[in-house]
Structures are given as structure tokens and as C-alpha cells.
């Protein structure tokens, strides 16, 4: 019973949220937009948390600021631009595509392509190498056949039915 209750409680409890009740907007749609936007904005104090996650005072101030601007009728992009103008691209957890970030965005696909190309070349080369067709002598071939036949028998008598006689 207690285990059931514990399981239920664990199932319904989400991760702890930094957003405090007093910060929430009355309009659920607007609040939802604020939450989504906050998840994309970096807390500059903790650096690897979004302001939605962080308990830092600056994160709280920025959450309130985001909500104020949304409530005042700003679009998501306008709110983002407002913060980027003050804190730079670093405030965005997803860096924008621009000349300074080309290396960041393009390096992984380029490396993947390069690796893929090397792999394709290597495989092709291996396939081109003549494979020795049937290198077994008739004696060896007979021995292999005998072993394979033996193995097939063994499996039947040994494991089927469970116990050994």
C-alpha cells in the first residue's frame, strides 16, 4: 500500500520548478509562451541553466521581465532581441546561425560527411580486393561438413527438454 502511494507520488511529481506562483501570468496562453521562451534563455549567473530552471535572483528578474514584455504585447522575437541587445547572443541557449557561429553549426555535419566518405572509401577498397574464393581443400571441406553435422546433433540431444540424461 505504502509502495503504491510512493509510486503514485513519484509519478505525479514533476521536476522542481524555479517559477514561483507569484510570477505567473493570469492568462494561461501568455504564461505558456513565457515558459517556452524562458526555456530558451540562459541564466547568465549559472550559465548552463535556463532562466526557467534557475533560482538565481537575476533569473527571477529576467522571468518577470519576459512576462512583463509579453503582457505589454511584445512578440517572442522582440523579447529575445531585447535581451540579446543587452546580454549578447550568449543569453540564447540555442546560438543563432551567423558568420561567427558557422564553425559551431557546420562542423558536426561536415565531420560526419568526412567520416562517412572515409568509411565508404575504405569499404569499397576492401570489396575490390579479390576474395579467395573457395580456399578449402576437399579434405578440409569434408572435416567442416562433419563438424557442422555433429554440432547440429549435439544441440538436439543436449539442450532440448531441459535436463541431461
Amino acid at each position, binding site marked *: 500500500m505504502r509502495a503504491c502511494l510512493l509510486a503514485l507520488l513519484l509519478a505525479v511529481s514533476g521536476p522542481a520548478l524555479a517559477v514561483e506562483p507569484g510570477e505567473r501570468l493570469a492568462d494561461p496562453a501568455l504564461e505558456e509562451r513565457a515558459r517556452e521562451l524562458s526555456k530558451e534563455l540562459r541564466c*547568465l*549567473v549559472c*550559465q548552463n541553466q535556463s532562466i526557467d530552471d534557475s533560482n538565481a*535572483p*537575476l533569473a527571477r*528578474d*529576467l522571468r518577470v*521581465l519576459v512576462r512583463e514584455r509579453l503582457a505589454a504585447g511584445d512578440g517572442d522575437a522582440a523579447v529575445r532581441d531585447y535581451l*540579446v*541587445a*543587452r*546580454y*549578447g*547572443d*550568449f543569453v540564447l541557449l540555442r546560438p543563432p546561425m551567423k558568420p561567427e557561429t558557422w564553425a559551431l553549426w557546420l562542423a558536426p555535419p561536415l565531420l560526419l560527411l568526412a567520416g562517412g566518405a572515409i568509411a565508404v572509401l575504405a569499404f569499397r577498397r576492401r570489396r575490390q580486393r579479390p576474395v579467395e574464393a573457395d580456399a578449402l581443400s576437399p579434405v578440409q571441406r569434408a572435416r567442416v561438413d562433419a563438424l557442422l553435422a555433429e554440432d547440429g546433433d549435439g544441440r538436439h540431444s543436449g539442450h532440448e527438454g531441459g535436463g541431461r540424461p
Partner: protein
Amino acid sequence: MRRLLYIVPALVFGLIAAYLLAGLGLDPKTLPSAMIDKPAPQFALPALGTVAPPLATADLGGEVALVNVFASWCVPCRAEHPLLMRLATEKGVPIFGINQKDKPEDAARFLAQLGNPYRRIGVDANGRASIEWGVYGVPETFVIDRAGRIRYRHVGALGPQDFEPILAMLERLRR
């Protein structure tokens, strides 16, 4: 061809190692300012009692000055205070203060104890003006040129080693 197979991975490793080694020397807490070379943001803050006159955007520009974000609760501010006092009293550098999220009586006591290097002080009770400046921690110090533009930003406490470089920078901007 065979040799290339050994050289290329070694080269790639060397490149990545050099890149990471260079990264070890960088401080991730020091963020580049998006505000460099931009005009000081629009703000107007009330005065800290009778300690100093209030601070607004219009007070900046005209002469090269420092804007220092401080608070009495901030320990590094206490550490950098002697430097600000030296700049203000020995060299007559105009320093403007933004007192962030502080109790006015605490801030007044802080300045009474350690001296007041500020010509003007704006009380930023909710931290909103600091956000306008792109401040993400206290203390931070900005250098403002005669046109009222932000030319330099220092994150964290200034130390005695910053005295000469700051004076040199102010001198350069005055020319």
C-alpha cells in the same frame, strides 16, 4: 597514402588539443559585453538619500567617466572600494554609482564607513536598470567616453593591478 592514415588523426588530435589548451586559460564567467561601443542605456534612478545626487542617462557623457555597479551586501565591492577611492580622490576620476538591490540605509552606512567615491548614485532597487546595462553580477564597472558611449566593461572586483591600466585607458579616451 598509408602514411596519411597515421598523420591525419595525429594532426586532428593536435588541433583539438591546442584548441582546448587555449580554452583552459579563458574564464567562462567573464562574458563579452554586447554593449561595447553602444550608447549608455536609457535609465533614470532616484538618489540615495542625501549621500549623492541621483543618476540618469543624461548625466553621462561630456567627460570620460566610470560607472560602477555596487551593493553593500557584495563582498567583492568592499574589496575593490579602496581602488575606486584612489581613482576618485588622487586622480579626480568621475565615478558614478548604481546601487543595486540594496537597502538605502545599508548603502549609506557602507559609504560612511569606506568613503564615497561617487559623484552621483542611482538607487536600482529592483535591478531593472542593471539589466538595461547588461549587468549579470555585482560589481561591474563600465568606462564611458565623452560621447556617452560604453567603451569598456570590467566584470568582478577591480584590484590594485587595474589602477594604471584604467588611468591609461581614461587618458586615451580623453585625447
